[in-house]
């Protein structure tokens, strides 16, 4: 988790501290992103793969080699090279993929919606089950449901996701036949739906192709449930500990003294106080799923950014790997900032 800003917003009507805080946040973000680029840049430098050969191939002449060497700016000092790199990235140029022959940016724009779709559905599942489970575990602390929640969490933290994916595939696809196998959509339905958002479920629904929608749903549900389980483990655990803290607060007693029902006390009072904290947790869980989808995508042959990165990795296609890393890293930072802003926006005490 990035703690981009330290401390919460201050009280007070004056405008200046708020402005300073925002500027400080922006500077921090810029520095963090620059550092991110520096790390990927350095990784690109220390690799044993010759970047020139990667572009022109093994059989090029020395003259071609030298020309490309200069073209890539490899004769310049490291800092200048970094400057060029940063300005390229800022213009959306992540270099060319050797494997696909296309701009990395184009490639990522193509594969990213698939990951987004998977991670979003996974997070929705995680929130829909994890939040009530966490609340219930806190309210009935020490009861069997608390134990179950604890166990669910511990197992989630201990299970290799790629293995669970395999076992899930074996069970629900191989043995029970409840869901479709790997891939995003059955072979007969490929290319039917003209992309709008790039997210197949959404596109199919928008275009009214319900047969495709059903097939796509049958493909996505298992990997999404798998990812959902992982975020559920995290979300329920955090929800529980937030709730425990609130349930001991005095205002909860006040609410009971007023004669409110236990349901109102829990959801109307205690839960209302953790909503803002939960936003942060859910945002973080979402960011983690974008990353966690790397392994899941491989198991389920899901054509997203995770598959893209790993396939490129095995093909020594460094531009794609680093490009993908930058994109995911930036999204990570972005989500963290966003949750921070939401926090400040929604918490009456932070205004």
């Amino acid at each position, binding site marked *: 988790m990035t703690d981009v800003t330290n401390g919460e917003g201050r*009280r007070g009507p004056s405008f200046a501290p708020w402005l300073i805080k925002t500027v400080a946040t922006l500077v921090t973000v810029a520095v963090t992103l620059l550092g991110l680029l520096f790390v990927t840049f350095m990784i690109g430098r220390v690799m044993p793969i010759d970047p020139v050969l990667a572009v022109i191939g093994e059989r090029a002449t020395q003259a071609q080699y030298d020309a490309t060497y200069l073209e890539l700016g490899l004769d310049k000092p490291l800092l200048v090279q970094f400057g060029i790199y940063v300005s390229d990235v800022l213009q959306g140029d992540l270099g060319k993929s050797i494997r696909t022959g296309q701009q990395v940016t184009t490639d990522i724009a193509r594969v990213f919606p698939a990951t987004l779709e998977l991670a979003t559905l996974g997070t929705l599942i995680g929130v829909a089950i994890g939040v009530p489970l966490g609340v219930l575990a806190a309210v009935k602390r020490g009861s069997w449901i608390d134990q179950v929640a604890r166990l669910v969490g511990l197992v989630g933290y201990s299970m290799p996701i790629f293995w669970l994916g395999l076992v899930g595939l074996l069970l629900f696809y191989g043995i029970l036949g409840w869901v479709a196998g790997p891939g995003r959509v059955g072979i007969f339905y490929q290319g039917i739906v003209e992309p709008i958002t790039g997210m197949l479920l959404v596109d199919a629904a928008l275009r009214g192709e319900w047969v495709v929608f059903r097939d796509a749903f049958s493909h996505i549900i298992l990997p999404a449930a798998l990812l959902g389980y992982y975020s559920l483990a995290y979300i329920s655990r955090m929800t529980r500990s937030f709730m425990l803290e609130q349930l001991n*607060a*005095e*205002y909860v*007693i*006040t*609410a*009971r*003294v*007023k*004669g*409110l*029902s236990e349901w109102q006390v829990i959801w*109307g*009072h205690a839960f*209302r*106080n953790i*909503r*803002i904290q939960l936003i942060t947790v859910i945002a973080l869980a979402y960011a983690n799923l974008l990353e966690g989808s790397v392994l899941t995508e491989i198991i389920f042959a899901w054509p997203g950014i995770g598959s893209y990165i790993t396939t490129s990795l095995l093909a020594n296609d460094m531009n794609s790997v680093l490009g993908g890393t930058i994109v995911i890293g930036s999204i990570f930072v972005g989500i963290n900032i966003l949750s921070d802003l939401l926090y400040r926006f929604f*918490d*009456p*005490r932070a205004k």
Partner: protein
Amino acid sequence: MSETLLDVENLRVSFTTRTGTFEAVRGISFTLGRERLGIVGESGSGKSMTGRAILRLIRPPGRVEADRITMHGEDVLAATETRMRQLRGGRVSMIMQDPKFSLNPVMTVGQQLVESLRAHEKLARSECRKRAIAMLDEVAIRDPERVMGLYPHEVSGGMGQRIMIAMMLLPGPEILIADEPTSALDVSVQLQVLDIMDQLVKTRGMGLIFISHDLNLVAKFCDRIAVMYAGRIVECCKASELHKAQHPYTLGLLNAVPDLEHPRPRLEVLQRDPAWRDALSVSART
């Protein structure tokens, strides 16, 4: 004081902990009419637990036992949870120490006031709002319309406590338990808040249980005083007859307070006698 609002006999509150059972309240008895009863005692003597036990708000691992807790003759211990919710807020209410913690930080004052009323009366929202604003006016809050839209952190401590009083009196209970309502406030506003509370309680003819560890304050605002020590009532007397108090603990409390009119070179340190702990509780029934 003909009418008995609350009758408590042999109340015990105990907690089961890892190291054994801890008895926070050990068999106390008292009644409350349309009067002001003060409960005084040092920290940990079981004052708050007594208050919460009456509302049946002690949660496990805590346990409440009593020979009798009745409100207007109605058995509280045997009441269903639904009935209990009607009693809480509707018949008995409680004000706690610090409005900073006892008001919900993410709800506006108005939301909390309205909610308190709607828990007991099926009224239209606009009607609730009107009554809430009127109530805020009664606790001497200026510009109540504006205050309705504020969050608790935006009001001062004294104001917060007056809002708390308004909120708790809104559904019209007949008993108010005030658990150290002014200990967290600035000395300058303490008396103001107490006066407002006292005024309201008097004009509505309510019964008040005023919990505090300040014996002089209690003597000033109450009709009767019960002194608690280690979960028992060690002494009970009329406020006007406090100077006749017998128990060494009460005398200790009296002497431990500086007195401007009779300055002493040294304040006495309270000496506790282990025998007090074992002595039987004095009944505060009338």
